[in-house]
């Protein structure tokens, strides 16, 4: 059956046609309005039971669309077909299982005579679970682009003696051998220094109230900086009710939904309502035809006082350029805006060349912009240029410090919300050793952020770590697991809250994993978990060895340590054995506890562990941020991690609805 364009573009006519066919294939942009029409106009989907085969492809197919296709075509085998013109359209296929709910965009396995590889930037094959560019070879691969030798050379490469076509799609191969597609490499955007998957933003935007269709793009704002722009087709343009049942403008409700669902840096700054999404002749969304945004939006959630003097404005401009943020204000602090030491060094150099001022690094990391400007003015001899103005102090949550647990040996900090808004609390099971010192700023930001949202938070140090009592030689992971139990009890006693979410960070994650099944947590959130204790110990031992080699100029001979020293912590043999045995294998019964996972560093074992857990635990979700933590980078061992969106992402994971 070959249909003309007008017929295809009319969902009602297409629905009529589908009553008569047994097999169809259509792109997701076309399939969605057809399914929506059927869902809106047909009570009985059995009239489509003649369809035996339904396939879609040609564009990224959201899992929800495939689920709806399963429902609308109850007798059909639903397939995803993944390919492109350069490989004769047929790359991989995936039969969507009828049973479990699909949450990921799998495209399956390659057709016969097609090979697929996931390659890194150096065209090296990546291990299972690692994200890279999807490339195809096989007899269907075309010779090249007519009269475009440059494009041909860039798109077709030789790997392992075969000619491969680089699709530009990002994906990974799961442990089961399925190819999972994660989006276009060119659909990734970097905004304010953060890498953002536009598809993930669109995924949440589609679930916002009154949103029918949407596209999110990173576009140049009026000042040349990238901003996220959401293009939205609304179901109706009248006012809607938000979750608090107030009547609000659709854009306000959508923005609020996005702020609740996503970290700040992923929330679009500009929302443009359009009557319909433009499609190209292949019926795919034509992103180039979308209108340009009118101008940059405000940074969500930030209301710092605006710079007034010349020096303040110049410093703010410098920060905005270096930190890729908008609207830097007088109360902003370089470190809190995501600056780190090397960026600060660049700022020092630029301040020297542009303003002729020598600033010291510690001041840059800790002073608000207003004070830095005043220091500049003083050093330039411009006394009185910046009159003192009342600063707005950051809101101070109620913080209680105390010792608790066995022999009162554990140090805890409880962040109490001024106005508890939820019968929920969060327990932070942080890292161990030097990683705690590195992560403390982010974890403090997380606690403050959650407290501001009405959630009580307990941070604590394990026995012989941080400010807790004890000597590291006496510590074991068994003891640290008991500490988690003590902390949970303390949190429940102090807040009266029964429903507790636990956040496990680095080694805190497998410790939490070992005991979670008997503690009744409502939700588990992991940030860069150490999935294999043995690999972690091995990596730390390598770093220790490197450190000792590099520090030979201090002392040629060292005495034999009493235990095994790893990056500032001395472990007993027993502790080390226990540490090596820690794992995040999903062996223990934990069903029913949703698991959220934030990855900010690449580690193959993390991905594999996540895949395993995601298969067995419902409601699990993986979020990723730029690879920025460098946990196993000896050169950064003493660097405190800046909060480049990590606490925001963790707070979202810890509080989002499951």
């Amino acid at each position: 059956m070959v249909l003309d364009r007008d017929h295809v573009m009319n969902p009602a006519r297409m629905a009529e046609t589908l009553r008569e066919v047994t097999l169809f294939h259509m792109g997701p942009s076309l399939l969605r309005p057809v399914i929506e029409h059927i869902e809106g106009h047909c009570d009985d989907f059995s009239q489509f039971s003649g369809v035996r085969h339904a396939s879609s492809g040609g564009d990224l197919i959201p899992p929800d669309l495939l689920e709806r296709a399963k429902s609308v075509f109850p007798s059909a085998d639903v397939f995803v077909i993944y390919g492109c013109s350069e490989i004769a359209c047929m790359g991989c296929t995936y039969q969507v299982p009828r049973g479990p709910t699909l949450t990921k965009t799998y495209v399956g396995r390659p057709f016969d005579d097609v090979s697929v590889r996931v390659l890194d930037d150096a065209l090296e094959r990546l291990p299972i679970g690692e994200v890279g560019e999807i490339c195809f070879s096989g007899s269907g691969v075309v010779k090249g682009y007519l009269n475009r030798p440059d494009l041909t050379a860039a798109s077709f490469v030789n790997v392992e003696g075969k000619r491969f076509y680089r699709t530009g799609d990002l994906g990974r191969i799961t442990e089961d051998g399925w190819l999972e597609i994660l989006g276009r490499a060119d659909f990734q955007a970097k905004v304010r220094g953060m890498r953002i998957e536009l598809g993930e933003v669109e995924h949440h935007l589609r679930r916002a109230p009154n949103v029918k269709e949407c596209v999110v793009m990173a576009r140049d704002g009026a000042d040349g900086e990238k901003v996220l722009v959401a293009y939205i087709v609304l179901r109706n343009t009248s006012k809607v009710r938000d979750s608090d049942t107030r009547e609000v403008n659709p854009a306000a409700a959508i923005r609020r939904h996005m702020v609740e669902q996503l970290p700040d840096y992923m929330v679009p700054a500009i929302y443009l309502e359009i009557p319909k999404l433009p499609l190209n002749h292949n019926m795919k969304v034509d992103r180039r035809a979308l209108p340009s945004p009118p101008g940059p939006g405000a940074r969500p959630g930030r209301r710092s006082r605006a710079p007034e003097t010349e020096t303040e404005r110049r410093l703010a401009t410098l920060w905005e350029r270096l930190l890729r943020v908008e609207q830097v204000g007088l109360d902003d602090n370089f470190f809190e805006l995501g600056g780190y030491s090397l960026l600060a060094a660049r700022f020092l150099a630029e301040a020297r060349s542009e303003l002729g001022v020598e600033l010291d690094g510690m001041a840059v990391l800790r002073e608000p912009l207003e004070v830095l400007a005043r220091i500049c003015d003083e050093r330039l001899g411009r006394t009185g240029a910046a009159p003192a103005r009342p600063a707005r102090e950051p809101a101070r949550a109620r913080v209680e410090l105390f010792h608790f647990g066995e022999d009162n040996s554990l140090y805890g900090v409880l962040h109490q919300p001024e106005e508890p808004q939820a019968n929920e609390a969060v327990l932070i099971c942080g890292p161990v050793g030097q990683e705690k010192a590195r992560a403390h700023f982010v974890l403090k930001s997380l606690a403050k952020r959650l407290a501001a949202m009405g959630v009580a938070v307990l941070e604590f140090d394990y026995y012989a770590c941080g400010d807790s009592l004890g000597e590291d030689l006496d510590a074991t992971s068994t003891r640290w697991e008991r500490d988690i139990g003590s902390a949970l009890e303390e949190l429940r006693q102090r807040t009266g809250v029964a429903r507790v979410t636990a956040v496990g960070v680095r080694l805190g994650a497998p410790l939490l994993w070992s005991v979670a099944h008997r503690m009744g947590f409502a939700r588990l959130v992991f940030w860069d978990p150490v999935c294999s204790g043995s690999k972690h110990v091995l990596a730390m031992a390598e770093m220790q060895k490197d450190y000792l080699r590099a520090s030979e100029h201090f002392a040629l001979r060292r005495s034999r340590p009493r235990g095994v020293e790893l990056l500032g912590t001395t472990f007993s043999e027993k502790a080390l054995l226990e540490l090596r045995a820690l794992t995040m294998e999903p062996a223990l019964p934990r069903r029913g506890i949703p698991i959220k996972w934030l990855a900010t560093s690449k580690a193959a074992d993390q991905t594999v562990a996540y895949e395993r857990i995601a298969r067995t635990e419902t409601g699990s979700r993986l979020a990723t941020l730029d690879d920025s933590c460098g946990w196993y980078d000896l050169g950064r061992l003493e660097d405190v991690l800046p909060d480049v969106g990590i606490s925001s992402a963790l707070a979202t994971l810890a509080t989002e609805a499951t």
Partner: protein
Amino acid sequence: MNERCCEFGEGGHLAGIVTEPAHAPANRGVMVLVSAGLVPKFGPFRLYAELARRLSVDGFVTLRFDLGGIGDSSRAHSGLPLKKRTEMEIRAALDWVAERYGARNLMLGGLCSGAEDSFRVAELDTRVSSVVMIDPFAYRTAGFLPRHLLHRVVRRTRRAVGHYRPHPPPRVVADRADGAKPLVQYEYMAREESSRILGTLIGRRARVHFVYTGGAHDSFNHEGQLRAMFPEIPFGDLVTVDYLPEMDHTQMLAEDRERLVEAIARRLVWSGANLEPARVDRASGFVMRSSVQSQS
């Protein structure tokens, strides 16, 4: 030893932990440890926690605390310059301990920026009778370069005969790759300022103890260099130095931390026995030579 949490400063925005001797009600003095850089109050690799606990054995009380915005302390007085804020916060810590333990033998100490912050406030607050500084300001002197060159010759000779095969420190490699000046190159306070403060402290008979580690080797490479740095100031028996070249700036190795903590504890025991301006034993107090120095 007993430890408990405390909050002080305006609205209790500063968080600290006080460590008291278990069985010594007659305390010998109170040490306030000022947080270093962005590291929380337990110190780099828990140095501050270990030092506080060791000092309690000798009968000293120690308060270690986070400066505003660091660790568990909140930021306050944002409109003020960092130096002024830091001064106010250290003074708040001194007020807190003086109120509870008396103002007898109040000491300030810290590592790196914590050392210099302590030094500055010690000048302004006459209650402070001693300052202990780990890797504070250092200035090259005439003797520095010959010693530095000699050290390099020795190392190269060792390398040539196969006794020494160092790897480049990872941080140096990382910084070179980026091509930027690392922020960890802490900028010392100007010599004029340190000279003035040192003169003021000695003038009121406060003790000043310097500890230099191998981490300061680019600026300091001999215990005698301290005196050469300030030839205009008569140290008397009030200024002491321990030079520990075998350890790095943040003492990642347990043996380095133990040695450093022990060295400081010994100094304080001597000072605690003899201190207070009117009670200085000039004959035996704060001599330059110590067992720690002879080990290095």
